[in-house]
């Protein structure tokens, strides 16, 4: 009785276009039936004899009826005869459900389609920029409200995110900066030794780390770690309509979700930057000692004499800006997640790419700015 054995018999009947089905005919027989029917044309009479068929399934019924439709469209006719009660009932059920193709307006082609695509891209980009500004504005407005009414600040959430985005990132950030310090000292020594200018390796390390690399690389790591987790967390809430639920319960998503997250980054990124600076200087100093014999005491002395404090200031000024960029991009991408898991994945990776890109662009702009003001 099983499907695998259900194969019915399909035989050519008396006429040129005639077929007789018998036994239990099912989906497994459909390829065979299709190949027999495909050559039939509307010009000659056609007949399908079901008198031997004990049972057919809806797939077979559909195939017979769609062939009948096709032949009728061509001005011919297909007679389906000899159906027993149950077979007739299936044929009737299927006949009533036969789909009617909807006529659709044809889509644009060629140049018009290309133009449409370009237009859509432009509008999407503009909308993303507008959405970024919107979330930034929301953050600033809610933050201002927290300043006026400090009780509205979600302190627990803030501390939680500080721990998540800040404290937990310390090991990776410190390790990364330590290694960068080592690389700088090693490469710097190799380049400066021929000139007998090894001692300048201290300036090389301190200026490049304090001014640029410490905070930039920290921001890139945080962008990868935290922007993605913000997008995933907010996005999955958006996906399950939790954000809508918050609104209906009188909880402001900006206040509850966005302010603690971005504020946590603004507080923690400068601290992480400082950690990176220290670890980088430590790594560089260690390498300078081992490789060039510059003692730690001498390293510190040269550091204090040769490196202006403005280098540190320049680095630290950038930190809150990077933090806001990363936080806003992460949260905004989360809010743009649709209601499928795919869009969550897409927006998460898009957020990381956008955040890293934004950090690097901002760093370039800062370089020009500090150059102009002479810092």
């Amino acid at each position, binding site marked *: 009785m099983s499907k695998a054995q259900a194969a019915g018999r399909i035989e050519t009947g008396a006429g040129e276009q005639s077929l007789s089905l018998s036994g239990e005919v099912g989906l497994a027989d459909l390829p065979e039936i*299709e190949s027999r029917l495909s050559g039939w044309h509307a010009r000659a009479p056609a007949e399908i004899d079901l008198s031997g068929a004990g049972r057919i399934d809806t797939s077979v019924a559909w195939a017979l009826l769609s062939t009948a439709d096709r032949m009728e469209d061509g001005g011919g006719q297909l007679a389906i005869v000899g159906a027993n009660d149950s077979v007739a009932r299936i044929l009737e059920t*299927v006949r009533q459900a036969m*789909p009617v193709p909807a006529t659709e307006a044809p889509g644009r082609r060629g140049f018009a389609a290309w133009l449409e695509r370009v237009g859509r891209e432009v509008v999407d980009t503009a909308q993303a920029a507008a959405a970024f500004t919107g979330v930034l504005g929301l953050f600033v407005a809610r933050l201002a409200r927290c300043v006026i009414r400090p009780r509205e600040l979600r302190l627990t959430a803030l501390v939680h995110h500080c721990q998540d985005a800040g404290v937990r990132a310390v090991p990776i950030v410190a390790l990364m900066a330590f290694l960068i310090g080592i690389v700088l000292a090693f490469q710097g020594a190799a380049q400066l030794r021929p000139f007998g200018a090894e001692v300048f390796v201290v300036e090389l390390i301190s200026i490049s780390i304090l001014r640029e690399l410490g905070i930039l690389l920290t921001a890139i790591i945080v962008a990868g770690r935290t922007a993605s987790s913000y997008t995933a967390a907010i996005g999955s809430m958006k996906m399950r309509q939790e954000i809508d639920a918050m609104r209906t319960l009188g909880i402001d998503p900006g206040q509850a979700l966005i302010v603690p997250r971005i504020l946590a980054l603004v507080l923690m990124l400068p601290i992480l930057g400082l950690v990176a600076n220290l670890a980088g200087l430590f790594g560089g100093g260690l390498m300078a000692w081992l490789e060039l014999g510059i003692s730690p005491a001498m390293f510190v002395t040269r550091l204090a004499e040769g490196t202006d404090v403005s280098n540190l200031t320049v680095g630290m000024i950038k930190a809150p800006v990077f933090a806001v960029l990363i936080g806003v991009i992460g949260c905004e991408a989360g809010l743009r997640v649709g209601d499928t898991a795919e869009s969550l994945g897409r927006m998460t990776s898009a957020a990381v790419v956008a955040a890293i890109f934004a950090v690097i662009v901002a760093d370039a702009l800062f370089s020009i700015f500090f150059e102009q003001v002479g810092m």
Partner: protein
Amino acid sequence: MSGAETVIEVRDLRMQFGRHVVHDGLDLDVRRGEILGVVGGSGTGKSVLLRAIAGLERPAAGRITLLGTDVLAGDEAAREALSHRIGVMFQDGALFSSLTVVENVEVPLRSVAGLSAETRHGLARFRIALSGLPWNAGDKYPAELSGGMRKRAGLARALAHDPEIVFLDEPTAGLDPIGAAAFDALIRDLSHSLGLTVFLVTHDLDTLYAACDRVAVLAEKRVLAAGTLDDMLEVDHPWVQEYFRGPRARAARKEDAPRTGMR
């Protein structure tokens, strides 16, 4: 119908998650061609029972025979063969989100050897129409459909390969009453004309009265009672009494009375 072959036989089933026992000593028989309605309070394990029979969840103890095959003992190949003979419609559709509705319905048809792409597509279109969806719904992605439309698409996919048994998990929940009634009629039609066996989990009393031949009540970790709707009125158990004698049940029964008489 009492002489019909038993297609699902569950004996002494025990399902548990960690230390939480959902079923214990559960027995159930389903006969070929019948529509069995499975009812029970929320969390009594209707969905879990369905998943166990369909081979998606492994019981802690017991025996499940599906279409003559032991679900738990069979090897990979036997289970695979079995999967072509059953269809499952999940509580929330479980459509593949990266495929359109037509492509979703085509998935079970891909295992039929020798079926041309054109036929497969046409057949999928027909299944979609059969489950009551408009033509243009076929080209949409699941995320673009309403909850009720997703249910219908799920049914279209469950029925795509003309299975012998379909498992439906709350098919009419969230449908409008007219849509739900049409759904009931469709399931009854298919069952009666195709000899399709239906295992139908539902909370919907109208569905129960309009579509089901027999009812199984899940309570106290087992099948508390199984039989026709009239039998249920005789069962001496507070939950069953309240369920089948409550005001909603009375309304559903009254409404359905003329139709039941005709059958």
